[in-house]
């Protein structure tokens, strides 16, 4: 049993990473993830590990590229605008098949936006972000405990597939304090015979790059990556389903929004309304099958996001058959309110769509347009 402590999400991610064997951290200040970089600065050097406050997000992700190339566990963290700057470097990490962990504590956008919580970087995280044909494994923690646990896991998964992994939190997850149990971890990174640097002792020179001008080579690499992604889809999907067996309506939400939805579900159940919840924990790979399976019994889905509607496209892609998909979203730093979500549930389940809704950002029977 590990120690029980009260921690902010940003600090918990940092501590979990250190326990997972993080050797090199490179970051740049940006709110709302500043506690993370500060924690790294006060804990890594004391352990003889590397902390650098880089000159930019661009430099930080490229330092990660170098450290990953040298075969050590490494990480960077940022928020929206900084993560945008890192996209080129993330694409290079994928292209060179380098494992690394990247943390995005999302804030309101686009542009400089604000420092309030947001889930508007879903597309960027799950649908590319940088150039080229690639995916990151994307974890969406909904509590400080889970943020720590998924960070531990992220290092193993990154190493296993030689692909970057993204922890996608938001300003609430980053800033909120919760009691958590920190486990003792014995880091066990796999051997990295492909890494550069270190005494070669007769081994052939290694090469870390993402370039080939020979015909067909980059195409072949892409199919290799594709095979890797197929394997990840088979083995790495994580999803939480609650009270879906008898549900008349299923809420779909991730991260901190799912916490709000859990409360809504509790109140709804207390009123006799059969509401369930599906919470994707991996946003990529996305739990399409879990949703499709739930739709065989349930005909109403309500997606709640802190955006104008991004994950909802994947919910639709899940092929829900006859099920209707509704949406409630709060972009730009807004946080969904329980009473607003409750009103939509009443509108659908009790009033059978009669009358009008007062909540903003709501679409009943959402369709791809």
């Amino acid at each position, binding site marked *: 049993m590990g120690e029980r402590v009260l921690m902010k999400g940003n600090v918990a991610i940092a501590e979990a990473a250190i326990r997972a064997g993080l050797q090199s951290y490179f970051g740049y200040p940006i709110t709302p993830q500043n506690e993370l970089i500060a924690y790294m600065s006060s804990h890594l050097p004391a352990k003889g590990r*590397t902390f650098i406050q880089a000159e930019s997000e661009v430099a930080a992700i490229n330092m990660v*590229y170098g450290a*990953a190339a*040298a075969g050590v566990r490494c990480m960077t963290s940022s928020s929206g605008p900084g993560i945008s700057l890192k996209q080129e470097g993330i694409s290079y990490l994928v292209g060179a098949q380098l494992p690394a962990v990247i943390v995005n504590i999302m804030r309101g956008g686009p542009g400089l936006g604000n420092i309030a919580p947001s889930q508007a970087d879903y597309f960027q995280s799950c649908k590319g972000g940088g150039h080229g044909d690639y995916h990151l494994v994307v974890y969406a923690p909904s509590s400080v405990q889970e943020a720590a646990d998924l960070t531990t896991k992220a290092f193993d998964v990154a190493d296993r597939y030689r692909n970057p992994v993204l922890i996608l939190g938001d300003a609430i997850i980053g800033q909120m304090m919760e009691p958590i149990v920190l486990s003792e971890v014995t880091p066990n990174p796999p051997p990295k015979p492909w890494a550069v640097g270190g005494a070669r002792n007769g081994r052939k020179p290694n090469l870390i*790059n993402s370039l080939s001008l020979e015909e067909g080579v980059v195409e072949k690499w892409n199919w290799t990556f594709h095979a890797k992604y197929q394997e990840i889809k088979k083995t790495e999907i994580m999803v939480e389903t609650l009270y879906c067996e008898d549900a008349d309506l299923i809420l779909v939400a991730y991260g901190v929004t799912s916490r709000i939805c859990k409360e809504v579900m509790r109140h709804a159940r207390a009123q006799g309304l059969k509401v369930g919840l599906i919470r994707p924990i991996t946003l990529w790979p996305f739990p399409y099958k879990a949703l499709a399976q739930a739709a065989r019994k349930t005909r109403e889905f309500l997606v709640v996001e802190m955006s104008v509607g991004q994950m909802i496209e994947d919910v639709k892609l899940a092929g829900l058959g006859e099920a209707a998909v509704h949406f409630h979203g709060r972009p730009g730093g807004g946080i969904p309110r329980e009473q607003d979500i409750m009103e939509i549930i009443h509108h659908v389940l009790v009033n059978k769509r009669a009358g009008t809704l007062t909540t903003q950002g709501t679409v009943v029977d959402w369709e791809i347009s």
Partner: protein
Amino acid sequence: MSDMEMKKIAGRSSLWADKPSPYCPGCGHGVVHRVVCELIEEYHLADNCVFMAPVGCSILAYTFLGLDVCQAAHGRTPAAATGIKRARPDTFVLAYQGDGDLASIGTAEIIHAANRGENITTIFVNNAIYGMTGGQMAPTTLLGQKATTCPSGRDALSGMGYPLRVCELLQSLGGVTYLARTSVHTPGNVIKTKQAIKKAFDVQLQRQGFSLVEVLTSCPVNWGMQPVEALDFVDKQMIHQYPLGEYKVDGVCMTPAAKEG
């Protein structure tokens, strides 16, 4: 001859695979590579060395160099080199960059790696043009020099800026221990280049901080010149703009232009 012991005094470096050079006739990269390879061999560094290939003509170095090679994004070589060196401080990290890579898209990374005193060695090859992409204006293109993106010649007064002097720019930074500008347009200058790079290697090996050698080279193909004419351009034009010599030794600033009178 048979009773005399033969001693090899020159030859192709064993680190350079017996493959055709990817460089154009008259290009200076090959000479700089040779000097670098010779020093790596002389110092027995090949077994624990990472050669950082940039985006530019020398990106293909991995195809013929018998060294661990890491190729970073355009301009980000100093950041990636930092990541490797901090992860493996015992590894000799050699960052090789061209003028577009180092002095244009990567100015932030080189300035800050130098200012942190990263214990890496940078070889900065300045040929005053973008080679790989076909002869566009570089930050180091001379005033009046023609390129595909300044067909009438570089003109500072019409907003194209001035030739960027990297050694002069980096000289004031506290993390820089050794800084020199050399050329490879004559055999004598090749020897001086080797001496300078040797000093830069020593700085890294003695963990004394950041070292950089800027090497002026010719690019006859993209300059639109005959090779001999191009060497003359280095001699008459480039060196005038970019004075040769040591700019910093043991962290102490030097004034090469004044020294050479």
